[in-house]
């Protein structure tokens, strides 16, 4: 019996309306859930690669994690067809009603490395948020350590 091999994609969603003011990403009125992201990717596979594409990835495709706070997520797909899922993600320009683009940050063979690079990315994001908050003299300065701890424990909880 041959083991089923997977690829893990760490991706980021960039919304059009937050391009200018990056710090506002926390104030998204309607936040996306991992289900929304999953169905968006699946729809895109359907339009771009047809029934064949959906059939190839359907068994393995799964959004394991999505954080609406930093807009990053982890996707699992079987190794043989990861370029289909990735290509479909590239062609996405809208999720629900919001214009956005998906960008793959890391492609890994084990979830472990994906988690590590997700934590790294989260830390960079949180630190840059903090820097921005300091620049604008926000009184409610974010508690960085707490946020970091929270995000990394959440990410490490993925199985």
């Amino acid at each position: 019996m041959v083991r089923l091999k997977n690829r893990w994609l760490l991706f980021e969603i960039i919304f059009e309306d937050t391009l200018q003011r990056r710090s506002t990403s926390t104030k998204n009125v309607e936040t996306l859930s991992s289900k929304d992201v999953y169905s968006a990717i699946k729809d895109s596979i359907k339009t771009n690669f047809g029934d064949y594409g959906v059939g190839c990835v359907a068994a393995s495709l799964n959004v394991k994690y999505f954080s609406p706070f930093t807009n990053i997520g982890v996707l699992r797909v079987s190794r043989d067809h990861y370029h289909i899922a990735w290509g479909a993600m590239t062609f996405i320009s809208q999720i629900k009603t919001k214009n956005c683009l998906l960008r793959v940050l890391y492609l890994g063979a084990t979830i472990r490395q994906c988690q590590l690079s997700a934590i790294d990315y989260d830390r960079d994001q949180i630190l840059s948020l903090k820097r921005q908050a300091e620049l604008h003299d926000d009184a409610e300065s974010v508690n960085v350590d707490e946020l970091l701890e929270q995000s990394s424990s959440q990410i490490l909880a993925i199985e």
Partner: protein
Amino acid sequence: MFYDLNLPYPTQPDMAYQQTEFRKRVDLLIKFGYQVVAYNHVISGKFNTNKISPIRKLDVADKLPSGGQQPTIEQLTRVTVVIEDASQNYGLTSANSAISSYDIVAVQPTSEKIFQNACGTYEVDIISLEMGSRLPFYIKHGPVGLAIERGIYFEICYAPAIRDAASRRHLISNAQNLVRVTRGKNIIITSEAQRAIELRGPYDIVNLGTIMGINQAMAKECISTSCRAVVMHATTRRNTYRAVISFEPISSLKQNEMWKVGHDEKVITEKSDFKGVSKRVRLSNDDNDMVEGNEVEKSQDMEIEQ
């Protein structure tokens, strides 16, 4: 190092919303890790000498948020000449002073005859085909091979594929044709993004390239080393005499290259007075002259000054 050699320059750069949109696109490119961008200006009709580049480069460095080193981006200018009539003279020669106000020159042929001319004779760096719609002619081996021999690159713009489904089909079909004919060589992938949302990260493009039939390593070359070759081709076309000799001011030398002008202080000061033409690119005498290197260099310097 990743390149995006086609970012459309706003048609009315003074209007505020176009300016902010443009700014957004450049910021996003920086965020994605691109290090070189070329602003594209499209001209249809004859390339007159009075059509000097209207492109103003953005001040990228001033956006530095305090602390931390922000990556910056190198900015180039590019012109794309749409050619519709093979018999007309479009003035695409190095004698045209307006041409040299741009860093990179591209042509967009609209018929097979013009495509052949572009591949065989035009002095350009990039041949751009409108791949988001059906091409009016087949891309043939003969002219393409000629273009590859001359170091001209073909361009695939991916933004139309992201914009709508119909052009996505055309683009994939045209791109696969091009890849088949060129065997994956001499292709660059650029964005041509009208809006920031149409840009994609470098590795997303590499994956897109694999869908178009280029293998992964070659797809990466399409947005890195091939683009660098285009830029080098362009500088060679512009700044050299018959691609053999170029001149640079002595002030452009780095500290560790100062030995090239010799050790005599007096020579250096004299030469910097003689502004512009001073440093000569040495062609042949390298190794065997090491012992008497200084003398040789000085005498060569004298030659130039005379």
